[in-house]
Structure formats: C-alpha cells, structure tokens
C-alpha cells in the first residue's frame, strides 16, 4: 500500500485538488492557432504549386480570416494571463527554451503575414466578392485602396510584398508549420504532466490543425472542385490523426507507471467517453465516413463534416489541456 496524504491545508486556487491553471481560453487559443496554421499552409502550398487561379478561395480568400483568428487567439492568451499589466514583457525578450515565448513571437510573425497576404490580393478579392454579388463589403476594399494610394509606406510595403510574394510564401509556409507544431509542443514540453509529455503530440496537433484548416475551406468555399479536393485531403489527414492517436496511447501504455496512468484517463478513466465517443466518434470517424460517402456521390450537406471536424478539433484541445493537468506524478 502506498498512501500520500497532504496533512496541511493547501487549497490554493489553481493547485487544489490538482493543477488547473490553464482552462478554456488556452484550449481555444491552441485551436485557433492550429486552424490559422492550417489555412495558411494550404494557401501557400497551392500558391507555390501555381494553383492560385484554380483554387481562388484557398489561396486568396481563406487567408483573410486568419488575421482575425490569430488576433482572437492572442486576446485569449492575454486574457488568461494573471499579471496582465506586465504582459508586454512577453515581447521584449525572446527565450529560446520557452515554448510560450516561441508561441508569442510566432503569432506576431504569422499575424503580419496573414494581414499582408490578403492585402496583396485586394484586386482579386474585390473581383471575387463582386462575382458573388457581395457589394456591401465594397466600403472596406475602397478604404484599403484609399490608404494604399494616399500613403507612401503602406503602398511600398504592399507593392514589395506583391513583388516578392514567392519568398513571402516560403516564409509564411515555414512560420505556419512552426505555429501548428508549437500548439502541441507548448503542452509536450512539460514533463511534469505525463499525458502531455510525448513526442507525438506536436505532429498530432499539427495534423489536427491542418485538418481543421481543410475543413474550414471545405465549409466556406463555393468552388466544387476545391471542396472535393479538400475533402480528399481531409480524409487522409483524419486517417493520419487516428494513427497518431493510437500510436500516442500505445506509447504511453508501453511506458512507466505514470504514463500508463495517463493513458488510463482515456482507457476506462474519466475522459474515456468524451474522448472516444464524442471526439474520435463524432469529430473524426463520422466526418471521415461522411466525406467518403460524399466523394462516392451520396448527397451530404458540405457544412456537416466540416463543422464536425472543427468542433472535434476544439474538443480535442479542451480534452488534452484538462486531462493533461490531472495527469501528474505523485509527490
């Protein structure tokens, strides 16, 4: 028998009965980061493959959303800080060993790219909107054009970006992969929490982020070819994700007692049902089947599998953030 009893009172906020200092804002922040990374990844890959006119939504339109997604993520991150008035210090230092520092700086780099990328496509975006009869947004595009014509610096930046778009695309591809992997590394860097502390988590979060990105394009694109292609890609990504999940749990099961206990949270423990039934069942397997059926010619509402993947991605991060904090070593 081994029984450890805390005999002095230590019911401290965030520590009792187990560490819980990261909640929904961090889960949502990781989700938004992964989603933005996925969208930008597809935009740059298809641009670099010369598909910018075949896949207009993926390359030109979807990245418009990433700036908003990244900004909401950044606001959530700052909201979660407990000493928020001192938060500017996140951006006066860079610490190479701290995943949190990497994340803060990557978000800044990605947000700059995700702002400049759509601005450099302003003509195409306007044409795209007119094609669909969305003239209400003309005010915004006109305003951007005015700024571009009147002020020298914005004009210079946008023209330079347009000129060197290929270089920018490579940099954006690189930074979006860093962002996608970082959302997993942020958790896996903590060896105090066995559930997080595995090397599959980084790639798993990256694949899940890319999958939500493809679901996002699939959901909002009007182009049938684009949607079908994204659907195919998403099927492959979900398969990879399932493989990684099984692999992660197998790895923990083959580990020491602390890792086996971490795996037990999903294998009979308190997160079993929500993980396997709700996340894996409704967030991965069901959209996988629906997308496969759609490709076979069955009529499936395109938003359904996409929303399931998106909600599944968010739920996955909520589960990992919460369950990981329960998984601790006995002191």
């Amino acid at each position, binding site marked *: 028998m081994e029984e450890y009893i805390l005999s002095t009172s230590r019911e401290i906020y965030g520590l009792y009965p187990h560490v819980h200092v990261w909640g929904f804002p961090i889960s949502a922040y990781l989700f938004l980061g992964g989603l933005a990374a996925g969208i930008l990844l597809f935009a740059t890959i298809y641009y670099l493959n010369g598909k910018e006119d075949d896949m207009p939504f993926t390359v030109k339109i979807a990245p418009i959303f990433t700036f908003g997604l990244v900004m909401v993520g950044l606001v959530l991150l700052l909201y979660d800080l407990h000493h928020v008035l001192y938060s500017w210090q996140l951006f006066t230092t860079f610490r190479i060993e701290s995943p949190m520092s990497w994340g803060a700086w990557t978000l800044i780099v990605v947000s700059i790219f995700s702002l400049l990328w759509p601005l450099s496509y302003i003509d195409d975006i306007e044409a795209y909107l007119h094609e669909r009869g969305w003239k209400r947004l003309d005010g915004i595009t006109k305003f951007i054009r005015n700024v571009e014509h009147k002020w020298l610096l914005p004009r210079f930046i946008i023209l330079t970006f347009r000129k060197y778009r290929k270089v920018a695309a490579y940099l954006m591809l690189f930074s979006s992969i860093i962002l996608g992997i970082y959302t997993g590394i942020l958790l896996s860097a903590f060896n*105090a929490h066995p559930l997080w502390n595995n090397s599959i988590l980084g790639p798993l979060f990256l694949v899940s982020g890319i999958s939500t990105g493809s679901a996002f394009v699939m959901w909002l694109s009007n182009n049938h070819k684009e949607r079908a292609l994204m659907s195919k890609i998403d099927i492959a990504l979900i398969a990879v994700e399932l493989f990684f999940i099984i692999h992660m749990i197998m790895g923990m099961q083959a580990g020491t007692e602390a890792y086996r206990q971490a795996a037990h949270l999903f294998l009979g423990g308190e997160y079993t049902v929500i993980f396997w039934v709700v996340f894996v069942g409704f967030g991965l397997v069901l959209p996988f089947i629906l997308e496969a059926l759609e490709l076979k010619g069955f009529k499936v509402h395109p938003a359904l599998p996409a929303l399931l993947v998106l909600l599944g991605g968010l739920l996955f991060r909520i589960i990992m953030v919460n369950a990981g904090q329960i998984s601790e070593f006995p002191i």
Partner: protein
Amino acid sequence: MRYGMAIEVNKCVGCADCVVACQTENNVPIGYSRDWIMEKVTGKYPNLDLHFESQRCNHCIDTPCVRTCPTGASFVSDGGIVRVTHDECIGCGACIEACPYDARYFHPDGYVDKCTFCEHRVTEGLNPACVSVCPTDCMHFGDLDDPESAISKLIAARENFTILPEAGTAPQIFYLK
C-alpha cells in the same frame, strides 16, 4: 556555493510549525502556503510505515520552471536559489505547469510566488524560517558545495532520498532515512 536542505524524516512529527513560520516570515497570503506536510503511509498491514515529509520547492539544479518561463522572470539566484522577479512575471502559468512538485502558485496579486529559501535570511548567515523553528530539529540547512559543511557530512553519512528523482530535476532537498 549551493544551498540545500536535509530533513530527517524519522524525527519529523508533522507539527507544521515550518509551514506557519514560513507564512509569518514571508507574509504569505491567508490560505496560501509555500511549504506543506505530506504524510506517507507505505507497506502492507500489519507492517505499515508512516513518515512525514516537510515539502517545498526543491531548488533543483535542472529547473523546468526557469526553462519554460517566457520572460526570464523565473531565474536561478546566487547559491542555486530558484526565484521569481515579480515585476517581470506575466502570470502565464507555464512554470506552475512545469513544476512536478506543485511548489508554485499564483499570488492573489497575479504574479507567481514560491519558496525563496528565505534568501533575505540566508544571505545574512541565518537559517530559513522553517528550519529555525523546527521543534524536533529535524531540518538542516547549509552549503552542499562545501564537503566539510555539517549538511554535506550528514547527507554523506546517512541513507537519503529525494522526491521524484525520475523527473530529472536534481532536487536539492534531501530526506534522511
């Protein structure tokens, strides 16, 4: 110079005087504590073994908390004392997640707070508050780098263990059996 602590678990009665002394000395907010008592029962009935451990930050050599801090607010001070600069802490909680010993917490003012080994006392040659009040004299504090110090001799002479050595942090608080 490397500060460390040796605690004789067979002498400890779990009175929690160390906990109260720390709260008073360091003005720890009510309801919070930088150190705590863990009661450990092991064995199989009727051969049970019970001992108390006075636990706190282990002022590790390999510090996951300092490594994960994004601003450098967490740092290793002279003598290996792990500390937090309150004005540089943004309250992100990464160090709390990184510590396998749950030694850190959010102070009600927002920054992260923890045991300082009573740096203000030990730099003047005094013992930390917890050590100085222990009624059974089971806690010893001193320089681990000096092989002639009383604490180094105690650790060398007695069988000892640290908490969670498998976490790879090289804790500097030794429990003497």
